């Protein structure tokens, strides 16, 4: 049973990172370390991510204008990139949640999940 669950979770989590990045940025602008902590804390440790893969995703999102960043001074170190969602990113997240997440909050589905 545990092996089956792990296998399913492994596949399921692969597509989750984008949603978690977007949720962390909806919560407010963050630099990469903060995004990582947000995801690990709020997913209760079920989603873990390497900083490198976060940077890679953020660069792609920035390239297609769904994420922007501001440079702000870091603690004693070099300035940090604080990422946030653009208006296109916010609309995209809203549409994604409406089409894919809200389904689970219908009473019929809620009963099945519980």
């Amino acid at each position, binding site marked *: 049973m545990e092996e089956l669950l792990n296998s399913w979770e492994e596949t399921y989590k*692969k597509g989750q990172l984008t949603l978690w990045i977007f949720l962390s940025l909806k919560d407010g602008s963050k630099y990469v370390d903060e995004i990582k902590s947000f995801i690990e804390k709020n997913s209760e440790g079920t989603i873990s991510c390497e900083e490198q893969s976060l940077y890679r995703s953020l660069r*792609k999102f920035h*390239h*297609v204008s769904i994420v922007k960043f501001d440079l702000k001074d870091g603690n004693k170190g070099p300035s940090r990139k604080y990422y946030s969602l653009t208006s296109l990113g916010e609309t995209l997240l809203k549409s994604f949640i409406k089409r894919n997440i809200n389904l689970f909050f219908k009473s019929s589905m809620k009963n099945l999940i519980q």
Partner: protein
Amino acid sequence: MKNFITKYLLSFSITVFILTLGFRILGSYFLSNDINIEIDENYFKETIPLIAILNIVYFTSMMGAGFFFGKKDHKTLPLIGIGFRYNLVSFLIFHIISLFWFISNLNSSFESIEELKYSSIIWGTSVLIHFYVFYKSKNKIINEINKEDLFD
């Protein structure tokens, strides 16, 4: 074609510039002075013109530099048009330097500008093919990133 020149493409361009300049200088020198390598084994005796070895070294160095910087560029941002950009930049640098070489009469008497015409046609065709492949993939991409890679 946003962010056409990345830091890796710039490094690649500088590498191509140095390699091409070296290739033209050494090539003209080897041809003018008819420099060859003689291999003399017991059963085997051969004279290889150094220009042939230079051509192979130049070609492999250009390809190697392209793969090295291109791979780094792709790791930073997986853009579909990277290969086309690298091919176009190396094509332009090679032909601008070579044209300058011939116009300034720095070439050896054994080098003809005709060869440059042939290389521009052959290489130019490969650049056009690269562009065509890039253009054909436009339905699969958003801002040059493959739709399947964007949210992976």
